[in-house]
């Protein structure tokens, strides 16, 4: 059976408790508006090339029509040889990838092995399926392990697809068009990086939810090259004013100093057992 790689072994069989609970919660709102999860319109893409995997993402996080974060990091660290791009609800992708990363680290320490991409995918699939789609995370997992270079996508309901190239997020149609046109098996590194960059760029140009800079992450047997940003947006805003105020800008009218009287009430010494 599996090593102790998770903090808590999930109960056997399917568990739809949370889906039932959520349905009950919906009832409590009595026809009013249920809180909607924050979605980050996104473009993420991944390509398997000759020596490894290239992952790319834009850096815009939106909260409805406002850009909440212009330099959001959508490529998450899972393990030294596996990275994950996340689209969907920002909090969900962040937490899910964090949990996965922790689990895999524990497994690595326990077993002395580097985690395999397929193991990460299985853990994610289990987790997302158990929550029956309530965790809004669409993830692209890419990595290199002893069995080769792999690229997987995991949907919010827990479905897994293994593919040589793909794009996800609100800008995926535009990005996929570029990938479908330019993808070949066993691309060289520079061509692969350029293909992913062009794909994300298409997503940024054609989708309102994606924008700002492009991050690229190259994973090979030799190591990881996380280039953040790979390409900066040509529409950087030029702030004319500075918002830092030097000390003394606000005049001090009065000053009153009250010393606090502290006295030692109790002192305990605990000796450490050093042998």
């Amino acid at each position, binding site marked *: 059976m599996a090593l102790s790689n998770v903090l808590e072994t999930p109960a056997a069989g*399917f568990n739809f408790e949370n*889906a039932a609970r959520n349905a009950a919660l919906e009832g409590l709102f009595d026809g009013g508006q249920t809180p909607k999860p924050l979605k980050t*319109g996104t473009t993420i893409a991944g390509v398997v090339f000759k020596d490894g995997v290239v992952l790319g993402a834009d850096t815009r996080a939106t909260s409805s029509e406002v850009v909440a974060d212009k330099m959001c990091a959508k490529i998450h660290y899972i393990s030294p040889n596996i990275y994950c791009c996340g689209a969907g609800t920002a909090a969900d992708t962040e937490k899910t990838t964090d949990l996965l990363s922790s689990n895999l680290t524990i497994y690595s320490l326990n077993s002395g092995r580097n985690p395999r991409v397929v193991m990460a995918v299985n853990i994610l699939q289990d987790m*997302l*399926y158990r929550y029956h789609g309530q965790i*809004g995370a669409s993830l692209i997992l890419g990595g290199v392990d002893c069995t080769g270079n792999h690229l997987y996508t995991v949907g919010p309901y*827990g479905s897994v697809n293994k593919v040589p190239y793909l794009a996800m997020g609100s800008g995926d149609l535009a990005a996929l068009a570029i990938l479908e046109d330019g993808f070949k098996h066993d691309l060289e590194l520079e061509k692969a990086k350029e293909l992913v960059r062009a794909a994300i760029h298409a997503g940024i140009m054609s989708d309102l*939810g994606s924008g700002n800079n492009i991050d690229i992450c190259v994973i090979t047997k030799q190591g990881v090259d996380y280039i953040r940003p790979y390409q900066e947006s040509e529409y950087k805003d030029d702030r004319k004013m500075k918002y830092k105020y030097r000390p003394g800008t606000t005049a001090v009218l009065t000053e009153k100093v009250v010393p606090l009287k502290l006295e030692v009430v109790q002192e305990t010494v605990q000796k450490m057992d050093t042998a």
Partner: protein
Amino acid sequence: MAAAASMMPIYGQQISSKNDLVPDWTTQEVSTGTTIMAVEYDGGVVIGADSRTTTGAYIANRVTDKLTRIHDRIFCCRSGSAADTQAIAEVVAYQLGFHSIELDEPPLVETAANLFRASCYRYREELMAGILVAGWDRRKGGQVYCVPIGGMLVRQPVAVGGSGSSYIYGFMDSNYKPGLSKDQCLELTASALALAMERDGSSGGVIRLATISEDGVERRVILGDQLPKFSTH
């Protein structure tokens, strides 16, 4: 396998966004609206499926492999929700593998089919999965079992499933005869799938075929331009 009117409460629709930035189909559940087929012949079975997985109107994967290995000589064809069928297939593969190791002999196709039925029937309200279980064992040779939505189990010499199956019942009824050879079964399956893919929007891509017999599993793919053609208009 009749197209079922599912009475299952649809939990999937809750993450819906009025936000225009995110199109509708990103929040739809991934479904293998599908055509799958399995035919028994003397000495084994032929199984086939299309390769399209959709999320709403978007094709999430156009080269899906819906023929999933459960054991050395037992496969299943998946239709319905992609997540549900993948999960069930994994659970059954584990249970069957364990059972086979305990028994120290290859498992029966009927056992696999019953394991599918057990999961599909117990969780029938929450799952949306239509599965064809097919394989070869030493006791009864090639067998095809149908486990549609709801969790029924029935053995049939030839079975079709998925959203595209409704278009090929007539073709199947008129062209299937007991006692076909392996190659005739392959041709029948390929033609049926091609016809269904032509008419059903949720089926398409390539045709994946597999033959399971005592000697093993032979897989092949019929690409888009090599599909059997039927009409010129």
